[in-house]
């Protein structure tokens, strides 16, 4: 038997669908130029995709047809040579359509395999987010702002070809740089894209990750009923009514906290989170009322605390808030846990406000798709500069 190669691309649903397809398709078509057959497919269970909810593409390449057929006789690969993670916030874990519970980003990465992450952050900043893995593997960071666009208009910032260049370097047995170059010329006829791929090939480095490195937390899991355990009529219990909230400082009760779907938290969909200035809040209700995910808990004093287990980071709260800097969306990479901001503020307002100021001041720019015509053209030069220089 020959050799089978598998690559998974973990991406943000819809936002990075075209990007993931370009990478996966590029791997297979470039490898075919070396006489290796392959196939590229999106994971069925992730469809229909939703904006931000993590999804997967797979590229399978083999040295001969029979090996490919053998490899394809599975629903999806059990392990992959390379995991490509095109948004660094996915390093916190993945709760997809296809799965209940949180999966580590490196779950399928095989021993000695490589995890490639696109990020502006250095590896030491990403490492604490990535769950520990029993086997050693490698981590490679492709420097760049995670590329987000939408279903119809694609932001062509060369992330796709830069990933292909990096893969050629990290797994040369599957793919050589020459085939990647040839594929790019055939597909886009763009010498600058070829240069971006070559630069990334020349500069990408991978570092070893040992089993002791990373986030030691056990990812949350759910045991759902099997078909023979279901109730009559395929019925399930409703969500319970909510309850009042408890003030950690005074133990006064009031406000309202809704009960929530216990088996889907949605926070792994989040790439930014709202941070709230409780001192400037005028209690206008708009963030709470307009939140499509009902993520705001109403506190006993009538403030609104975004619950970080439920928030998916759409940013509507920031958009509707009439007070300047009262709700600010901040890059999810800046946070270590999902604890309540309101409780922290109630416990010590000075500490909280110092933290708040620092967090807002250091917020990284992220872009989540189309806001106006011409926006992508304004944004791509920065990324092309990174592609040239790093």
């Amino acid at each position, binding site marked *: 038997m020959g050799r089978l190669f598998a690559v998974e691309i973990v991406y943000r*649903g*819809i936002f990075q669908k075209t990007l993931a397809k370009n990478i996966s398709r590029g791997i297979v078509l470039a490898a075919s130029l070396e006489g290796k057959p392959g196939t590229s497919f999106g994971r069925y269970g992730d*469809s*229909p*995709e*939703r*904006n*931000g*909810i993590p999804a997967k593409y797979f590229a399978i390449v083999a040295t001969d047809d029979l090996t490919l057929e053998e490899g394809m006789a599975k629903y999806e690969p059990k392990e992959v040579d390379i995991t490509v993670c095109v948004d660094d916030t996915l390093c916190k874990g993945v709760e997809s*359509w296809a799965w*209940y519970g949180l999966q580590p980003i490196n779950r399928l990465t095989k021993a000695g395999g490589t995890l490639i992450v696109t990020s502006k952050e250095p590896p030491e900043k990403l490492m604490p987010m990535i769950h520990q893995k029993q086997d050693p593997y490698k981590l490679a960071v492709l420097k760049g702002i995670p590329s987000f*666009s*939408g*279903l*119809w*208009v694609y932001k062509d910032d060369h992330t796709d070809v830069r990933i292909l260049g990096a893969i050629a370097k990290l797994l040369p047995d599957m793919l050589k740089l020459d085939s990647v170059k040839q594929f790019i010329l055939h597909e886009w006829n763009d010498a600058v894209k070829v240069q971006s791929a070559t630069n990334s090939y020349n500069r990408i480095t991978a570092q070893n990750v040992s089993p002791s490195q990373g986030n030691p937390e056990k990812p949350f899991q759910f045991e*759902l*009923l099997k078909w023979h355990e*279901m109730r009559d009529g395929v019925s*399930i219990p*409703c*969500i*319970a*009514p*909510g309850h009042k909230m408890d003030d950690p400082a005074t133990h006064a009760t009031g406000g*309202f906290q*809704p*009960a*929530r*779907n*216990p*088996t*889907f938290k*949605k926070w792994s*969909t989040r790439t930014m989170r709202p941070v709230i200035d409780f001192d400037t809040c005028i209690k*206008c*209700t*708009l963030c709470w*009322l*307009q*939140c*499509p*995910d*009902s993520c705001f808990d*109403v506190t006993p004093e009538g403030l609104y605390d975004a*619950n970080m287990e*439920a928030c*998916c980071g*759409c*940013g*509507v709260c920031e*958009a*509707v808030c009439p007070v300047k800097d009262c709700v600010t969306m901040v890059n999810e990479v800046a946070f270590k846990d999902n604890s309540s901001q309101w409780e922290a503020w109630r416990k010590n307002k000075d500490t909280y406000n110092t933290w708040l100021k620092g967090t807002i001041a250091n917020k990284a720019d992220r*872009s*989540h*798709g*189309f*806001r*106006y*015509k011409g926006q992508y053209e304004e944004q791509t030069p920065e990324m092309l500069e990174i592609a040239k220089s790093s």
Partner: protein
Amino acid sequence: MAISPFVEIDATQKLDPFKGVKKIPLEEYFTSGHRTCQGCESALVMKMMVKAAGPRTIVLGSTGCMYVANTTYYSTSWVVPWMHTQLGSSGSAGLGAAAALKAQMRKGKMKKEPINVIAFCGDGGGADMGLGAISASLTHPDYNFLILLYDNESYANTDIQLSGSTPYGAHTTFSPPGKMKRIMHHRWKKNTAGMLAAGHPECKYVATVCMSYGLLGMNCIRKALEIGGPTFVHSLDPCPKGWDYDPYISHELGELAVTTGIWPLYEVENHTLRLLGKTKEIAEGRYVRQPVRDYLMKQGRFAHFTKDDIDYFQSKVDEMWQKWLIPGVIPMMKDVEGDKPPAE
């Protein structure tokens, strides 16, 4: 309006309008943990719909995003009872559930009390496939239920196929703009609410809403449930997935749909038409309609539009406001006879 003595009308819940955003109850009956997109305005409609209706409510949902994403395998975000129904059958399900409650209460098998029945559908399930069933159900004055159409202007659940509600020129899976032909969808959007209001004399309430104006929308839903009989509410929901925009601007796009005059807000209560909110201000000349360009150029689905396309879109919206018999509601021209006198 005269009501036949043979019609048996049951009492409905007393649902006074919320007097302001601060009077809206804190309780949620559609809660977190649904797998909708970031910034999904249809999920917001579900939340506000049941918030307006209150705890004694049964919700029925035909296939679409709000079925698939909200109740994935053995999980739910509903606090009130919810049941799935088939893609084109929100009308039948709403009528059937209301009739079943009525029969159960008449036979003494259930405590007699007014229970809200709401059947929702998307634009595919409601404006296209389910239109016949909705029309039939709106002719039954004996049963109290509301049909809510959440319109994100495409079959969004299955990755954005074109529906009868898709606006002119929009990019969908079925209408990708090409090099030879730029505009692959050249039909104007179906006027569902106006058609249902005009065509169903037994229906006591039809309204159009947009949840960017949440309080107004919730009060329309309360009125629809309180007034009794079969009622219909049509909501326009910006969809970050299909309209291709940053979820951050979901709320703003809803406002723009109204302020540009593309989505007029109105209610037809006991056969009396009333324009609402910003739409009323536009009609009374107190607010100037914004150019449609401001709305179109914020969405990737219109990114292929040239100036000519924008001008055409604007001219059609102007027509809605200047030439329709009732601006934005009934697409019959007032000046037809003047322009082309009937042959003598």
